[in-house]
C-alpha cells in the first residue's frame, strides 16, 4: 500500500525550481533513500512531505488522503532536520523522553524503548548530559533518538548521519535501518552518499534539478542506470564517447576517438549515432598479458582498503579508472603497459548528452 504519494509537485524559489513536476511513491514500511547532489532539491522534497513547505502546485497524499493543505502537526510525520533543535534546558534523557511523556504512554515500556534507542545510537553513557555539552555528532544522534521515540509511523530523515565520524557512520547505517524495520516505521532518508543509500535503502530515488530521474532497488539503480549521471553518481563509471559502428545479437560495436574500437550492450540506435558508453570502474578490467580494447600506461595506484583504484592513461581516450580487490595491489606497477577490457553487457549505451558530458556528470 502506498503510504506517501507525491504527485506532480512544483516548488519554485525565484527562478530556481527546487521541485519540478516531482512524483514519488513511498510504500508502507519501506525504507526509501532520496539520493542526490547538493542543491538537487532533496530537502525541499522532505519539507513538502512534512508540511513545512507548501508546494506551488501538485498534491501530497498520506494513505490516499490528500494532506497537501494539512498542517505539520496533523500529519503524523516526524522530521529530523539538519538543524537538531534539541531543548537546551533538558538533558539528553529528557529530550528523548519528551514525546512519550506528552503522549502519556506507559512509562515503563517507554523507558525500555528509549533505553534500546540510546544503545543503538551509542549514547547510553551520556543520558545525563545537556545538549551544549555534546559534540555535533552526539547532538545529531540524540535528535535521531528523539525522532525514533516520537511515536510517528513516518520518519523523515534529512542527512541523519552527516555530522558523524566516518567510522561511526558505518555502524549507525546498519543499526538505524534495523531499528526502523523493527519498529515497523516508514522512513524517507535524504542523503548525498551513494554508499549509504545502497546499504540502507529498500529503494533509492535519485534526484537532480528537482526531478526524480530514477527509482529502484539499489541493485536496479546500480546495474541498470537510466542516465549517464546515475551511472556515474551511484558507483563511478568510465565514460567513453563514440559512434555506433554495428549492433548484432547482444553486442554493439562502437568506434571511439583515434580509431579505437570497443564493445557495449546491444542498442537499437542507428549506425553512426553519437553515444556515450559507461562502464562501472568495478566492471572495467586490466591485464598485462591478455588483449583488450585498447592499451594504456598505469599512472597511479590508490589504496583504499578492501579495494584499490588503478588509473590508466589511454591515448585518445584519457584516464580510465579500474577498481580491483586489494590483493591485486602488487600485480601492477606504475608505468606498466596494460590492456583495458570489459564484458559488453556491463557497458551501458546512452545518447550523447545534449549539453555536453561535463554538464551531465556534474556532481557539485
Amino acid at each position, binding site marked *: 500500500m502506498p503510504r506517501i504519494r507525491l504527485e506532480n509537485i512544483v516548488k519554485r524559489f525565484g527562478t530556481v525550481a527546487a521541485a519540478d513536476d516531482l512524483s514519488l511513491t513511498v510504500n508502507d514500511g519501506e525504507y526509501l533513500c532520496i539520493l542526490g547532489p547538493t542543491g538537487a532539491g532533496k530537502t525541499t522534497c522532505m519539507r513538502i512531505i512534512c508540511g513545512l513547505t507548501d508546494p506551488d502546485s501538485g498534491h501530497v497524499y498520506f494513505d490516499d488522503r490528500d494532506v497537501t493543505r494539512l498542517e505539520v502537526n496533523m500529519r503524523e510525520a516526524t522530521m529530523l532536520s539538519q538543524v537538531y533543535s534539541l531543548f537546551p534546558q533538558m538533558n539528553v534523557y529528557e529530550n528523548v523522553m519528551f514525546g512519550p511523556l506528552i503522549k502519556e504512554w506507559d512509562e515503563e515500556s517507554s523507558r525500555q524503548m528509549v533505553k534500546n534507542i540510546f544503545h543503538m545510537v551509542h549514547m547510553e553513557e551520556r543520558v545525563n548530559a545537556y545538549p551544549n555539552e555534546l559534540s555535533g555528532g552526539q547532538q545529531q544522534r540524540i535528535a535521531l533518538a528523539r525522532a525514533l521515540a516520537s511515536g510517528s509511523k513516518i520518519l523523515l530523515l534529512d542527512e541523519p548521519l552527516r555530522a558523524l*565520524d*566516518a567510522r561511526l557512520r558505518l555502524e549507525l547505517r546498519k543499526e538505524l535501518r534495523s531499528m526502523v524495520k523493527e519498529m515497523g516505521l516508514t522512513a524517507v532518508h535524504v542523503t548525498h*552518499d551513494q554508499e549509504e543509500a545502497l546499504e540502507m535503502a529498500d529503494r533509492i530515488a535519485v534526484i537532480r534539478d528537482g526531478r526524480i530521474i530514477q527509482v529502484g532497488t539499489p541493485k536496479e539503480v546500480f546495474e541498470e542506470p537510466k542516465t549517464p549521471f546515475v551511472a556515474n553518481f551511484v*558507483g563511478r563509471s568510465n565514460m567513453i564517447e563514440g559512434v555506433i559502428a554495428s549492433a548484432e545479437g547482444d553486442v554493439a560495436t562502437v568506434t571511439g576517438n583515434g580509431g579505437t574500437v570497443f564493445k557495449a550492450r546491444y542498442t537499437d540506435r542507428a549506425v553512426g549515432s553519437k553515444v556515450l558508453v559507461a562502464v562501472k570502474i568495478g566492471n572495467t578490467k586490466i591485464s598485462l598479458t591478455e588483449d583488450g580494447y585498447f592499451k594504456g600506461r598505469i599512472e597511479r595506484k*590508490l*589504496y583504499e582498503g*578492501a579495494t584499490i583504484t588503478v588509473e590508466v592513461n589511454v591515448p585518445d581516450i584519457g584516464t580510465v579508472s579500474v577498481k580491483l*580487490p*586489494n590483493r591485486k595491489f602488487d600485480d601492477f606497477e606504475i608505468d606498466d603497459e596494460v590492456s583495458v577490457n570489459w564484458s559488453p553487457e556491463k557497458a551501458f549505451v546512452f545518447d550523447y548528452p545534449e549539453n555536453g558530458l561535463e554538464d551531465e556528470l556534474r556532481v*557539485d
Partner: protein
Amino acid sequence: MTKIKLEHITMRFGNIFAVRDINLEVQSGEYVTILGPSGCGKTTLIKVIAGILTPTEGRVFIDGNEVNDIPIEDRDVGYVFQNIALFPHMDIMDNVGYGQRVRNASEEDTVAISNEYLELVKMLDRSGYIPSELSGGEQQKVALARALASGSKMLMLDEPLSALDARVRVELRYDIRRLVKRLGITVLHVTHDQEEAMSVSDRIVLMRNGTIFETGTPLEIYRHPRSIFAAYFIGETNLIECSVAQKSKNGKTTVRLRDGSMVKAGKSIYSVGDPVVISVRPEHVYTATDGLRAVVKDIVFMGTYWRVRTEADSEDYVEYNISADSQVPMRGDEVFLVFNKKASVVFARPYEGIWEAIRLE
C-alpha cells in the same frame, strides 16, 4: 630530509590533555594523514605545527630549526580549514592573491601567481566569480589555491573534505594528492575518514585519546595492524574472541572459537591456552562445504559486491563479501565459513574487553 619534527609535544587546556607527549617526524614531500575519531587531538596537533597554538610542553622543529617562538605568519605554513573560509566579498582572483598583497608583492606578481595557482586547481575560468557563486567543492579548491599561492612548502589540511558531498569528496581528494605531489609539498592532512586517509597518504598516523596509536603506510596498517583498534578503525573487520589451541614451530596459530570449532590463523607470539582475538576482514572470509557453521541474517547489495551478514554457532557476527554476479544466499540459509589464514591477524584479548578496545569516544 626531515621537514617537520615534533619532540614530546603536550598541549593542555586547563586539566584536559588535548595531546600528550607526541613525537613525530615528517619527511620533506611526504603526505601524512592524521587519522582518528572526534576529540582525539588531531586538529590540535596541526595547529601546534602551524603556530596557531603554542604547546604547553615540547618543541616543534621545521627544517631543523626550533620554531616554538616564531609566530604563525612567519612559519610559512599553508592552512586549509574544514569550513571553507574564503573572503565572501572578494572575487576568486583576489582571494587567491590575498597573501601576496599582504606581503606587498607587486600587482603584476600577484596576478601572475593567482593565475598560476587557479590554473593548477582548474578554476582559472572562474576567477571573476565571488565565493557564493561557486559550489562547495569549487570553493574548497580555491581555498587550496590560496593556501598554496603563498609559496609555502608545507600544507596543513584540517578536514578539508568533511563539509562536501560524498561524491565530490572522492574526486577532490585525488585532485589534492596529484597537485601536492606535483609541487613537492609536505602535507599533514587531518581526517576522521579512514578511506580518505588510505587513498591519499604516504603514511597514516592513527591517533586516539591524544596520543599516537600506530603509524604506517596505508598498506601496512590495513594488512598488518598492530592493535585491535587499528584493525577496526582502518577498514571493516570481523573481531572474534577465541583462545589459542595449537601453535606450530614457525608460529602459525590455530585458535578455538567459543563453539569449540578450530580455525587456522596467522603467525603470532601467543601460547596454547592464551585468550586472543582474531581479526578477519570481510573480503577474507569465504564459504565452503565445511567450516564454521553460520546462519545468514541479512544480505545487502553494495554495488560491485554483496555483503552477507551472518551469526555463527560461536555467537559471533561474521560478515563476508560475494561478487555482485554470484548466487546470493537467502536469509535463514546455513553457510559454512572459512577464513584466509594468512589474513587472520591474532591479538591478545584485551583485559578491558573488545568493545572497550575499539570505543570511538
